[in-house]
């Protein structure tokens, strides 16, 4: 009886030193692990399908089913996806999009984090009359659909001579990354004890000295969080890439979509899946390497907001 109440009624909230729930095959355990196992299978399925499809030849795909592992493993689809697949007139595969994405990513990440971290710092530690008003407007801006701003931005970029180029897109990513990143940095710097800031001022440090010598070194984790957030966000962007760049500068996501959804020629599903996997590889790698920081990043960006 005690066992049943233990199994059903209570989470055994013991600390790390505490005993694990004793019976390994209790009803509760079978339910919990069974459900989680099934859900995990469902979540992993698409990844599995992507991998196996990309390793099959087309004849095997036409005969077999999508879930079956490949009989004959071939890397030809990967080679083709990377170097030979065609979009429009270019037939140099996804590699072009990959390098475009890298060229877009690096300056965008640097610019957006630079602007946002300084803004967040100024907003949390050097408040002045009216600064909160701008911050509130910025936060509202984070929720307004991009669609309402995209066209006037085209005009602005054209006036600046940046439309269709790399730096125009960098600017757009900086602008749209600003609300969430500023919030992230502002909230983080707000947790830094005010007395530390006061001590630095008594020590004669000014705005920039406090930022570079005191705040930045002690907030590396939040910079990493911002980095993860921006790298995945910018890498995965489709809308801005398709609007603000020209075809030979298209980022990887746009090029991927053009390859897979092109209406010309015979559909090569294995090449498509290889291309899809290739595109997903960068954020997936970051996700698996960063682990808990990724979770912390979205939790910090989301829950505190």
């Amino acid at each position, binding site marked *: 009886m005690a066992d049943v109440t233990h199994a059903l009624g209570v*989470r055994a*909230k013991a600390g790390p030193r505490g005993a694990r729930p004793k019976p390994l095959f209790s009803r509760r355990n079978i339910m919990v692990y069974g*459900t*989680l196992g099934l859900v995990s299978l469902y979540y992993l399925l698409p990844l599995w399908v992507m991998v196996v499809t990309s390793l099959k030849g087309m004849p095997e795909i*036409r005969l077999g089913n999508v879930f079956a592992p490949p009989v004959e493993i071939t890397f030809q689809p990967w080679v083709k996806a990377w170097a030979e697949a065609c979009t429009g007139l270019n037939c140099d595969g996804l590699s072009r999009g990959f390098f475009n994405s890298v060229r877009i990513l690096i300056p965008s990440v640097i610019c957006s984090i630079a602007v946002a971290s300084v803004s967040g710092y100024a907003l949390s530690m050097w408040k002045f009359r009216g600064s909160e008003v701008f911050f509130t407007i910025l936060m509202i801006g984070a929720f307004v659909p991009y669609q309402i701003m995209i066209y006037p931005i085209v005009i602005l970029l054209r006036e600046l001579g940046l439309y269709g180029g790399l730096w125009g897109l960098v600017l757009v990513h900086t602008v749209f990354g600003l609300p969430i990143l500023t919030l992230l940095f502002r909230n983080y710097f707000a947790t830094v004890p005010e007395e530390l800031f006061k001590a630095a001022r008594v020590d004669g440090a000014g705005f920039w000295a406090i930022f570079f010598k005191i705040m930045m070194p002690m907030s590396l984790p939040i910079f990493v969080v911002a980095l993860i957030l921006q790298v995945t966000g910018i890498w*995965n962007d489709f809308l801005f890439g398709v609007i603000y760049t020209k075809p030979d500068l298209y980022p990887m996501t746009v090029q991927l979509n053009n390859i897979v959804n092109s209406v010309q020629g015979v559909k090569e599903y294995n090449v498509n899946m290889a291309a899809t996997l290739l595109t997903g590889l960068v954020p*997936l790698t970051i996700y698996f390497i960063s682990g808990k920081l990724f979770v912390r990043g979205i939790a910090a960006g989301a829950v505190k907001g």
Partner: protein
Amino acid sequence: MTQRPTRLFRNASSKLALVPMITITLVVFVGCTLWTVLYSFTKSKSLPRLDFNGLDNYARLWKTSRWLVSIENIAIYGVLSMVLSLTLGFLLAALLDQKIRFEDTFRTILLYPFALSFIVTGLVWQWILNPDFGVQHVVRGLGFTSFEFDPLYNPEIVIYGILIAGLWQGTGLIMCIMLAGLRGIDEDIWKAARVDGIPMWKTYLYVVIPMMRPVFITAIVLIAAGIVKVYDLVVAQTSGGPGIASEVPAKYVYDYMFRGQNLGQGFAASTMMMLCVVIVLIPWAYLEFGGKKRG
């Protein structure tokens, strides 16, 4: 310095440092929004021009079947993804919160789709749901020859096909937020409930969930913001097809602005989108900020 400095130049560096942020806020977030709203009342076609035609664009918009389909789709997608994301996200979080082994592994598996773009998500589900090779084909191969499941080719249910992909991508995030919320609950609450002999499901329903109100609000706002922006997923998975069966407002806006040469329609549609968000945002702001004053 013995003179009182002018207010404007006190801490000048900090104000200078905020110039980019303030410029962006005013020019893009305020300026561009107002620009679009203003031009939504004009006869702009392939080029924007200030030739007002009142509410004509809106009148036409609400007579366009493609827009009506888009609205219907986003309503179905929105309601279902809101309800399902919250329910599944919470249930999964509660399961993961049972002091289980391999918690990190399970969490990693449930969250990884969130790292992937909507384009990748859309394309992989397009493949899985392909009737000739995917789920339908496999199930028929098992002997159920009359089995039919081809959401991406059936206008009646295509939006559910997109929903499956959207949930797969986004539920992990909601689960993570819920899990953070559950972890934030004082363990003494569980002890107290245990001492009082309250069953676990009742504790969740009557004690824990009400305590997690702010977390739920955050999750709702995030899901809502995501719903309005749904675009890439549809583009990748169905391109709006079959026919116009899976069109969504964001795609309508893009197509009319950049393909259809009908800017007025695009502006009106995007203004409608913003209105929807404002309708969601105001109650939220009231709950978040108005509520605190009372408490």
